[in-house]
């Protein structure tokens, strides 16, 4: 099981646009990825509603987990995405 612990970097937290980008990236990954915050159960990272239900804000620590071939690389790129302030990148990135 590959695991990454990341602090959410986006100013608006893990909802709205940052969540949409994260969910899309998780959905495109070759392995199934879950995400959880400390006190809640792990949920599918490719489900917008599940990710929103975490209520993760900027500064919240989240844990990503995945199994199988490509899991390490997948989590590296998803962790990088979460750590960035996607709100700040808005104009150039779409």
């Amino acid at each position, binding site marked *: 099981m590959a695991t990454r612990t990341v602090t959410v970097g986006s100013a*608006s937290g893990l*909802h*709205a646009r940052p969540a*949409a980008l994260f969910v899309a990236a998780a959905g495109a990954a070759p392995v199934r990825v879950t995400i959880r915050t400390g006190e809640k159960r792990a949920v599918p990272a490719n489900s917008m509603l599940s990710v929103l*239900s975490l*209520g*993760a804000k*900027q500064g919240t620590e989240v844990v990503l987990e995945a199994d199988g071939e490509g899991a390490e690389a997948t989590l590296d790129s998803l962790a990088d995405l979460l750590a960035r302030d996607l709100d700040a990148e*808005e104009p150039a990135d*779409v």
Partner: protein
Amino acid sequence: MAELTGDLLDRRAIRLAEEAADRDEAIRRCGEALVDTGAVHPGYVETMLARERSVSTYVGEGVAIPHGTLAGKDLVHRDALAVLRFPAGVDWGGQPVTVCVAIAARGDGHVELLASLAEILLDADRARALREATEPEDVLALLVPAPEDSNR
């Protein structure tokens, strides 16, 4: 009992018999509800349209959460929500939307409420109840986390 959303969700911003020909019109209706209740400057509505063109705010279960861009934050007078229901549905980039939960936010005080909304939508029965709500009380009862003896 509505303390938690009392500040965020004004009863006058719960409009359950709306009509819109398309997504842009639905977003404008959402914006009007936020403007009418004094939550945002009228200019905020354009940033809601811009956000939607950038990334869809459709979240699933017939629900979208329109909101402004980061640039629109200065046009927010106070954090607020509006709940608009379009009984006839609105085509949201290929997805049928019945309920819009519009968001005006400067800070992150609405994040818990969005999380509650997501939990509701992950529950098929409550998601349907929200889509079929015809009274503001129904919406408040669903969105406001009830204490211990949950009325779900």
